[in-house]
């Protein structure tokens, strides 16, 4: 019971959205609006080589020809792409050489968010806790990446995308856009033109990355969008676990976050990618909040490659996100574990795609959706088997939980089987919290709020167990906070 009580106390201490503060930091902006000049401005600002600029301009031209997709079950007023800043960066004098030179205001922001930017910082109160390397992205730029020296000893490259374009141009050129092509979709194409920063990871053959890598995204500037690009390459036989977190200030306006994440997994390699998405969700009446339109895809190029996506989606006014796996290598496998929670007026349309191309490929999807308030939560997923994917195997379980009369939960799975030895199983249920279970918990002395949290935590347990330990603790608290005020 202690754990439950502790969670309750923790929730009580917190505001509804504790990351909603704005930091007053001197910033440089690109001129408002989007044009070829904006793209050139961003590229010049980052001192990029000519090939990168050409790549961006090509993406921009293609984007002009694309139409904004309307198939997702989300509703929002038309986005005015000219009414936003595409580049916002904290002003810096001459590029900080070490953490000591970073603007103390900026460090204060991360301290407030609880992100350890000092390398010796470890999880408080835990003896021998594992170390985390962090890449901190503030609006459009990466401000600091920790533990780089220690990682370099293992041969691991972990740096911001801008640095990677500068220092590891060949690797970037080889892999960038190879998983998510430039004109893959409207938002990915926009990202390709104006992406400003993000993380780059390369794990050399046979290396097990000595620590967890993580990126922390923060939107601070008003009327700006964040377009980050992450590229992770796990070479033969390597392993990496990567975590991603994000927050934004509370504002009445909607801000666009259109990221692209590409994972390349070669033979016998494994990437574990975990996300705790906590962008500002807007207020109870649905004013403000982040539009989170993200393209994430992993390509299992080698035999026996493995990818595992785990996501806890609690924030954002609108989420539009389908982390996918292309299972190309023989015997490669993909996993997708997801908790998506919507409350108030939030809308989420999220799920995954498991595309079986190679023989004996396996995939597993566990999705738990919870909708409360006036929110709408859709699971949308595709499982397909190519004629050559002999022995392909998929298991999908998607459960939805409804809390309240005004919310909605939808399940839209697509199954395409094109060979006789593929075996696909899918089950889905939609229910509300069981009265019997609530009654049982409450007659054992729990308040209604505690009882709901206990049951919800039980409902999402399968997925929480897949998260790295520190994230799991944070995620469990987030689940409680997100549902606060939804009962009664």
């Amino acid at each position, binding site marked *: 019971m202690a754990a439950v009580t502790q969670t309750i106390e923790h929730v009580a201490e917190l505001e509804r959205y504790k990351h909603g503060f704005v930091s007053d930091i001197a910033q440089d902006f690109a001129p408002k609006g989007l044009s070829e000049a904006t793209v050139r401005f961003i590229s010049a600002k980052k001192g990029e080589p000519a090939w990168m600029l050409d790549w961006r301009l090509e993406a921009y031209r293609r984007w002009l020809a694309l139409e904004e997709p309307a*198939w997702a079950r989300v509703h929002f007023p038309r986005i005015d792409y000219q009414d936003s800043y595409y580049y916002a960066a904290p002003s810096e004098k001459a590029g900080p050489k070490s953490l000591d030179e970073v603007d103390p205001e900026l460090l204060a922001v991360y301290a407030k968010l609880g992100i350890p930017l000092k390398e010796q910082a470890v999880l408080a109160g835990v003896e021998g806790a594992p170390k985390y390397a962090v890449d901190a992205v503030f609006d459009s730029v990466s401000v600091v990446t920790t533990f780089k020296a220690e990682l370099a000893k293992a041969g691991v490259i972990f740096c911001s995308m801008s640095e990677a374009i500068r220092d590891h141009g060949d690797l970037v050129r080889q892999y960038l856009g190879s998983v998510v092509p430039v004109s893959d979709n409207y938002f990915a194409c926009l990202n390709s033109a104006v992406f400003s920063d993000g993380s780059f990871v390369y794990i050399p053959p046979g290396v097990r990355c000595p620590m967890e890598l993580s990126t922390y995204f923060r939107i601070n500037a008003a009327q700006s969008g964040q377009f980050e690009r992450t590229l992770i390459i796990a070479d033969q036989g390597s392993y990496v676990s990567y975590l991603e977190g994000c927050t934004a200030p509370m504002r009445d306006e909607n801000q666009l976050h259109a990221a692209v994440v590409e994972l390349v997994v070669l033979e016998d390699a494994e990437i574990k990618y975990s996300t705790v998405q906590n962008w500002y969700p807007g207020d109870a009446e649905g004013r403000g909040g982040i539009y989170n339109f993200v393209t994430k895809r992993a390509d299992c190029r080698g035999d026996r490659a493995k990818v595992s996506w785990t996501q806890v989606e609690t924030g954002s006014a609108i989420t539009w996100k389908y982390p996918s796996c292309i299972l190309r290598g023989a015997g490669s496998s993909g996993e997708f574990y997801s908790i998506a929670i919507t409350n108030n007026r939030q809308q989420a349309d999220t799920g995954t795609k498991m595309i079986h191309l190679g023989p004996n490929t396996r995939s597993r999807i566990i999705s738990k959706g919870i909708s409360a308030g006036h929110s709408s939560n859709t699971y949308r997923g595709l499982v397909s088997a190519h*004629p050559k994917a*002999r022995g392909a195997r998929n298991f999908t379980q998607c459960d*939805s939980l*409804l*809390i*309240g*009369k*005004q*919310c*909605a*939960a*939808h*399940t*839209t*799975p*697509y*199954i*395409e*089987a*094109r*060979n*006789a*030895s*593929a*075996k*696909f*199983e*899918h*089950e*889905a*249920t*939609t*229910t*509300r919290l069981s009265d019997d279970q609530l009654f049982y918990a409450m007659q054992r002395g729990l308040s209604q709020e505690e009882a709901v949290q206990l049951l919800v935590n039980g409902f999402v347990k399968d997925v929480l167990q897949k998260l790295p330990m520190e994230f799991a603790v944070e995620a469990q608290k987030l689940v409680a906070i997100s549902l606060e005020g939804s009962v009664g």
Partner: protein
Amino acid sequence: MSLARAIETGDLAQLPSRRDEDWRWTDLRGLLRVLPPPSPPHVGWAAPGPFAGLAGREVKIVNGRGPGGITVPAGERHTVALRFIAAPDAGAHAARLAIEIEDGAELVLLESYEGVGEGYVAQVDLRIRLGAGARLERIVMTRDSPDSVSVSKTEATLGPAAALAQTVLAAGARRQRTETRVSHPGAGGASVRLDGLYVLDGKRHADITTVVTHDGVDGATDQLTKGVARDQARGVFQGRIVVSPGADRTDARMGHHALLLSDRAEVDAKPELEIYADDVVCAHGNTVGALDEEGLFYAKQRGIPDAEARAMLTEAFLGEVVDRIGHEGAREVARTWVAKQLGAAS
């Protein structure tokens, strides 16, 4: 946008294409570059239909022409054979029919799509209204020609405490679609059972699409569709259950299970739940795979030859849907149909 409009106007741009979400697996615009000429009137079609001898009355629509409606007066019980026939000279035609089942009436509708001609393109639109406490059992059997395009679209509206039970037996065509949309009032224990079977071989395609909208409290929907695809055939199942705001205590279940018996066959499925009320129990299950190896092994080690064991297991797999048919005569016709389809395909 529909095939019927394209046939009536001759405008191919009216055809649904894969870009239309509901037609993504049954693309007609990409398939039909030209429409055949309009079907001429055809008189004196005498051959018996698949449900011959079971019905008290027969209604024939030949080449899209025939009576415009069927009415079952309040309190009466009828069994009607409704036959849509594409005669040897059929080209393109569209037909509309309204079926009215008044309060407390009962109808067993034995509906058949009989394609004799080749290369025809046809659509049927049915509008079915069930009054309070009315009952309808509908068994739909398709026997379209392999090179035809055939679409049947039904909109059914249920009154309070009405009951609709339906079983579609699809043998496919070049493109074939049986679409059923049900407006379910829930109230007073109205119930819906929507079942489907498809057994496909060659290059046949069959699409079974259903949409059930629960608008009131206490509604129940039970759906079971099973299918077998061999050779280069393609089976499509799209089922959507919508629970409107306030339609509490809805109990809806949907199952789709398919056997893929060839590496060139394809099965596509989209079982959807769209739920706007919280006090509901909704579930769907979907499986696609080959015959169960363990079951085969068991049968074989009991001395049953491989081919026979496969046929037996496949028949048993499909039999579950056949067993749910209420009308005894129709159930036996369906059983024979399954055996014949499997025999023809092996």
